[in-house]
């Protein structure tokens, strides 16, 4: 049996090492080509995960189990279920795109830039594939290093502040998570297996404590209101590719943590605190949506829109029904495509104009019609227009919320208003109208490479919007198992 999961983790890492070995910028071309080959190969090895995935079971598949640190009974334990497998595909796919997106823009330290993305891709796959809590933690933390470097080296003017803030904020949460894991290790009599933790009985006070420790780690990553403030800074300063991966994949780590750790390990605490979580989620949806409305910087606007969308995801998890959880997962995948696309669109404009301010634009459609068409699609997807991927997830979560409580669904549904407001208003100011200034007048439409990147994302967005069944089918059995598990008290 081919160890596809190991390949999906270590192939990009190995490719990163090769790219790094090309050295200085004299070999930039070679580095780019090698990085693209590595990213493509990394994506190819994830395809069997989807094609030979058995949708009939909620159990772990493609399992690999080897002892790693026997002293602490830590295993190299990999496996995916319907919840995690899609993220590995998504991540490897986005990596190909960001390598292409950085092709011309990045001119200094190209090898290091490309290698960072490849390392990041492998490590992120590792997070989604780990079934050993410590292995999960190692990957979870290790992703900070390449992202820190990416923001700090290739970012905007205030990159250093943003990079350090990003690093320390996320480290704060994850250190508490580590203590929680060690506590579970102690309670479970010396196991780091996540699946063992799922069966471990825990008293309510312990569950509560652990819940908050997990929350510290995951809420920062998601990010949930009120620990979201690092995200706008990081997004604004990160290079385009960095923003895309940050929004598309890294934010999902937090949400994934909730479904993999918080809900199944701590079902009673999750139920007891669901009201609290729902309130935080709704604040993110409504308040952050309003905050997005007043942004003058496009990247900041999309960053706030991401927080608002992720509020939907956490909302979906904590209403404990199939629509909610599946909708949240679909929303995560969809947001992966849409937010990456939005950031890449801003990147396309930024590369030409070197400004992200909405006020500096206007009438871009006159000079970049093809680009305007693509951005139109992604903007629509961002506000959840039917037939785009954005609609499916939000609709399912609202359905789930409706089953739980009408007013909950009502407040959540207002996101359709806020989302349309901030996205379309931005789109209108940037794209439509008369040509605002000379710079806009001189803009050149997207080239073949940019076209390919955006077209791939557009295809994904439309596919998920029109025919989401393949996505939901993959996750169905696992989500059902999860809900059954969460419904049983551990007390």
């Amino acid at each position, binding site marked *: 049996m081919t160890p596809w999961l190991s390949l999906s983790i270590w192939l990009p890492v190995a490719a990163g090492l090769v790219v790094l070995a090309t*050295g200085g910028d004299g070999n930039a071309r070679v580095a780019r080509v090698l990085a693209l080959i590595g990213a493509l190969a990394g994506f190819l090895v994830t395809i069997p995960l989807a094609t030979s995935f058995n949708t009939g079971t909620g159990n772990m598949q493609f399992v690999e189990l080897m002892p*790693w*640190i*026997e*002293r*602490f009974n830590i295993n190299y334990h990999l496996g995916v279920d319907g919840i995690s497998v899609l993220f590995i595909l998504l991540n490897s796919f986005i990596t190909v795109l960001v390598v292409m997106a950085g092709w011309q823009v990045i001119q200094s*330290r190209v090898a*290091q830039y490309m290698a960072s993305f490849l390392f990041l891709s492998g490590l992120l796959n590792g997070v989604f594939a780990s079934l050993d809590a*410590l292995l999960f*933690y*190692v990957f979870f*933390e*290790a992703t*900070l*290093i390449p992202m*820190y*470097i990416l923001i*700090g*080296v290739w970012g905007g003017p205030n*990159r*250093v502040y943003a*990079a*350090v803030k990003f*690093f*320390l904020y996320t*480290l*704060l949460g994850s*250190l*508490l998570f*580590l*203590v929680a894991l*060690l*506590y579970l*290790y*102690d309670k479970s009599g010396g196991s780091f297996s996540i699946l063992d933790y799922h069966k471990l009985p825990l008293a309510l006070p312990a569950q509560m404590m652990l819940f908050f420790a997990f929350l510290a780690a995951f809420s920062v990553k998601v990010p949930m209101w009120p620990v979201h403030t690092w995200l706008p800074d990081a997004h604004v300063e990160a290079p385009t590719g960095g923003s895309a991966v940050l929004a598309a994949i890294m934010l999902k780590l937090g949400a994934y943590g909730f479904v993999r750790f918080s809900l199944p390990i701590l079902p009673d605490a999750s139920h007891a605190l669901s009201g609290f979580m729902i309130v935080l989620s709704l604040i993110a949806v409504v308040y952050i949506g309003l905050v997005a409305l007043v942004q003058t910087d496009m990247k900041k606007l999309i960053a706030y829109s991401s927080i608002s969308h992720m509020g939907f995801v956490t909302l979906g998890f904590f209403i404990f029904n199939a629509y909610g959880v599946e909708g949240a997962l679909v929303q995560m995948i969809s947001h992966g495509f849409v937010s990456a696309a939005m950031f890449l669109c801003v990147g396309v404009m930024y590369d030409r104009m070197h400004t992200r301010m909405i006020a500096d634009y206007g009438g871009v459609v006159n000079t970049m019609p093809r680009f305007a068409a693509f951005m139109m699609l992604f903007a629509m997807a961002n506000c959840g227009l039917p037939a785009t991927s954005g609609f499916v997830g939000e609709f399912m979560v609202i359905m789930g919320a409706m089953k739980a409580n009408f007013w909950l669904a009502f407040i959540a549904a207002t996101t359709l208003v806020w989302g349309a407001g901030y996205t379309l208003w931005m789109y209108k100011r940037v794209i439509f109208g008369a040509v605002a200034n000379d710079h806009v007048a001189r803009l050149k439409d997207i080239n073949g490479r940019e076209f390919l990147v955006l077209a791939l994302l557009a295809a994904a967005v439309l596919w998920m919007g029109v025919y989401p069944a393949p996505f939901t089918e993959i996750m169905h059995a696992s989500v059902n198992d999860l809900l059954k598990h969460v419904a049983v008290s551990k007390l």
Partner: protein
Amino acid sequence: MSFPMPDLVPAYAEIFLVVMASAILIADLVIPGRDRGITYGLSLLTLLGCAVLTVGAVQGTGGQVTYTFSNMFVSDFMGNLLKMLTYIAVAACLVYSRGYMSDRDLLKGEFFVLTLFAMLGMMVMISANHFLTLYLGLELLSLCLYAMVALNRDSASSTEAAMKYFVLGALASGLLLYGMSMIYGATGSLDISAVAKALEGGRPAKTVLVFGLVFVVAGLGFKLGVVPFHMWIPDVYHGAPTAVTLFIGSAPKLAAFAMAMRLLVNGLLALAVDWQQMLIIMSVLSMAIGNLAALAQTNIKRMLAYSTISHMGFMLLGLLSGVVNNNWLNAADAYSASMFYAIVYVLMSLGAFGMVILLSRAGYEAEELSSFKGLNRRSPWFAFIMLLVMFSLAGIPPTAGFYAKLSVLQATIAAGQVWLAVVAVMFSLIGAFYYVRVVKLMYFDEAQDTAPLEAHLDMGVLLSANGLAVLLLGILPGPLMQLCFYSIKAL
């Protein structure tokens, strides 16, 4: 009067070392050449010889715990392992120091002889089974270090540092001796095993014992450099020539760990409840003051000095978690975690100070943090090595420093001290800031100093190996953890 010949096999390495150090002292007088190539070679050969003899001693004693010189000297697995690691650390110090000392005209025979005698002191400490042997080793080590700090006798700050070190060191030795005399008074023996037996039997005068214990712990705290006995560390680290700082900051930590084990665990385990409380206070204060003070430093040697204090505080977490409610079950786990921590710390400390030496050259001390600016431009490879070392000091996976933290935190939580673990991770978060700042300087800032890096081939190779060892131990920490565990078990 019969005088039985003691079994010399376990002490062959020490005997060989004292012979060779004396021979080098004399030979150096007649060896020509300013670069001391022969002395350098002889010193390294001596270390190699010691290593061979230590392996021989392990075989000669069949790996059993062997006492000799009327129970004053013990050869066990822990001691031999620590000695082997000491040889490696001292060898690395010699290799790193050579160019630096020679550029400053400090590469005299004394440097080598003092280093070797200091190492002899450490070996005696590691193998001591008697308060007097321990004290003898400690004094030999300390006297050599005082002289080494003052090696650059024209430098006011070096002589000042040596003076401070000497005065405070003498005070600490006095405290230790006084404490030992109290314990002698209460138990009637200076032999560590006999003290342990006396304590296990009918507990003799508890007041005197605890009184003595306080002084012993204070003396120990001084040697480890933990708060409130840390005052000498920043000044000595700062004032000494960097090569000497490198030496003080590395191998002696292993000896100090051995001393703590011999005194507290081999000797005074029956008083664990008392000394553990003292260690808790010292540990928390060290982590707090070490990390907070390090934040404010602009001199990298001072920063690393405060970082040492915090790391030693962290290391104590393992030592203080051994005995819970008179239950020894976790003892081997906890002490081996501390041992692993000490070893990993020495490795990281060698790497960090090695980099400071690498950046310095004739007439230029790379002491300020700003000398690391833009290192990624000047030498991507060594910037990467420093990145590994810094992330390891911060405890970010996948580097060795993470597993060091993990294992002591595990011990702390297994001892039921969750609050202590939370305090520890919070301070390590603060610590992460200043390590990450070094990475920021290297990668995000422009170089002030653009002179190309020149490293002797041997230094370059060894420093690279040192950095990669930090990574390798991060990927496969199992074997070393197992060795530590075994050596504590075999005590």
